């Protein structure tokens, strides 16, 4: 006698796929495609995407960085100025709407009205407020840097073979005038918050789906060969503006993003969802994948994500190269160094204000 489940593979069944394996052997990756060693791989998204970017950069992948530091800038200074953190210096893109607007700005389709903030005597790029640690000395300098930056963004969309987009949040701050989305609320890292100009927005699942569809279509329209790998950041919200508990908001936010990724993966053949969210939040990890603040992901969790990524998406020859480099140091080395999270600026700003 047979039943519909009798021919299914082990990963369909909880005991075989979750209960029985060692925690580090849990492998929820079922859909994948090999990324060739020559393929240009770009990353963008929330701060968890930086873990992927960092590991991809030091692996056998061809990590596509279009915005490089000017000659003469030493490595430490370049890192401070966010060169190489992502494929271009866009900083963290938390919401899908931000990613759509980045595309539109790069291709001249959107020119937001409020785009420069003041902070003391310096100028801040409202769409990447942390990109220059000391701000820009003049508007002209900022605009020049931005023009160069957006040209690099354009190249990413036009030339990437793979774009890894990590979905982070649904909550954002928006210009009432033209709908521009800011990665940080005005007033946190620059600018001034005004109720008449700015509003809080929490994108619904349907809105995220629409934005993500828009993003995929736009990226594909300028680069038909592009593959898009979606991930959802497992890092909880640092704060919620909704009048509810931050954990409740986190759950709603992540659920909306996860649903959107699922819907879009079903629509487009060249979109694959990679379950890093599931690896980190899996009950099998028994909280070992979150640090003591219950928010930041531990090295061992990131390592699990990367092992599964390399196992399924990397060519066998390239994996052998990585094996050669698997030394004690490479395991112990902290993956958490140098991860830049804009939202942490919210906490800093609150503390600075004496709260």
């Amino acid at each position: 006698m047979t039943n519909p489940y009798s021919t299914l593979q082990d990963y369909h069944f909880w005991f075989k796929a979750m209960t029985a394996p060692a925690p580090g052997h849990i492998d929820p990756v079922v859909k994948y495609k090999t990324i060739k060693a020559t393929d240009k791989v770009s990353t963008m998204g929330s701060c968890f995407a930086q873990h992927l970017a960092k590991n991809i950069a030091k692996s056998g992948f061809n990590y596509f960085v279009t915005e490089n530091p000017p000659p003469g800038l030493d490595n430490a200074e370049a890192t401070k100025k966010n060169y190489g953190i992502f494929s271009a210096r866009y900083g963290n893109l938390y919401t899908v709407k931000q990613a759509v607007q980045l595309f539109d700005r790069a291709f001249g389709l959107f020119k937001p009205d409020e785009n420069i903030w003041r902070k003391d005597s310096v100028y801040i790029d409202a769409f990447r407020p942390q990109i220059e640690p000391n701000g820009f000395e003049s508007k002209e300098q900022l605009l020049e840097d931005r023009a160069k930056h957006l040209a690099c963004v354009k190249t990413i969309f036009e030339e990437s073979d793979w774009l890894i987009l990590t979905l982070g949040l649904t909550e954002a701050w928006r210009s009432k005038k033209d709908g521009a989305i800011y990665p940080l609320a005005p007033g946190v890292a620059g600018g001034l918050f005004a109720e008449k100009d700015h509003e809080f927005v929490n994108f619904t699942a349907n809105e995220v789906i629409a934005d993500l569809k828009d993003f995929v279509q736009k990226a594909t329209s300028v680069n038909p060969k592009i593959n898009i790998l979606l991930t959802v950041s497992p890092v909880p919200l640092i704060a919620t503006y909704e009048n509810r508990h931050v954990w409740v908001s986190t759950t709603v936010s992540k659920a909306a993003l996860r649903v959107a990724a699922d819907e879009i993966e079903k629509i487009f053949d060249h979109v694959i969802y990679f379950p890093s969210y599931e690896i980190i939040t899996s009950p099998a990890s028994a909280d070992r994948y979150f640090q003591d603040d219950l928010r930041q992901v531990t090295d061992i969790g990131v390592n699990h994500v990367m092992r599964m990524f390399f196992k399924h998406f990397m060519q066998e020859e390239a994996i052998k190269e990585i094996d050669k480099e698997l030394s004690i140091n490479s395991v112990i080395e902290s993956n958490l160094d140098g991860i830049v999270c804009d939202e942490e600026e919210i906490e800093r700003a609150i503390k600075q204000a004496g709260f």
Partner: protein
Amino acid sequence: MRAIYPGKVIVPIRASAANDKKGSNALIAELANAAIWITGGRFELAQNLPVKVIKVPSINFHAFHPDLCYAEKKSANTLTKVHYNSQIAIWAFNNQIDTSDAVRLFNGSTFKALGYFDQWGANAERLKLSFRQNDFSDIEFNQFFLAVKRRGVFMHSVNHPSAETIVEFCKLIAIRLGADQGIVKRKIIIPDSLIGTIWPLYPEIGQELGLVGNYVWRIGNQEIEGLESYLDFAYQQYLEQGIQPSDLVSKWPIPHLDSVLNTELKKR
């Protein structure tokens, strides 16, 4: 078992006590006065006694410590003074590799090639089989194994379970003796009598298992931190025991150890 049954008289008897005729007779005499005998072997000694025998498996699990082995001085046929050894350290000692170079053999690439990353499934199956052979059902095994697995590294070494693991195991036995299933949820804390010797979960193996590892050994209440310190300690032990290179053999040989480690050495 004393923590579960504080009012009962519980007498621990070493398995090796019944190795000879005299020891066997003494054990039979002891059993003649006992109501229950919880044992991992020599069941035949209770054949003609009214004592109730509860057969229990040994808890052996190598997935956390696949490099650990027993070894002997081949020429004398004697075990090394410190019973636990590293397979890689033995090879390095036999090949007269300086400890500072031997450190480099401990890495993810070597461990992968030696199959150290792939031990979990086979060890879990073997443990389940040993439970079955002692009349424990798979449900009972899962009740024990899944509870200890959740806690992370549940073994101090291949055959030394942690105190928490022993408690979970004793709960199973208690249920077999008629205790209520509710005992499973009872928090029982006992002193860990096996912490004198702890073999580390190597970081690279820990990473594969989703657990945090380290290179800190505890041998005879002595703490040895770092690979080179351990290798110095091991080499010193072998020399003090008069073991010459090539006279040291693992009791659990790994067939391709030689070729894997030779290849690894050449990489550098």
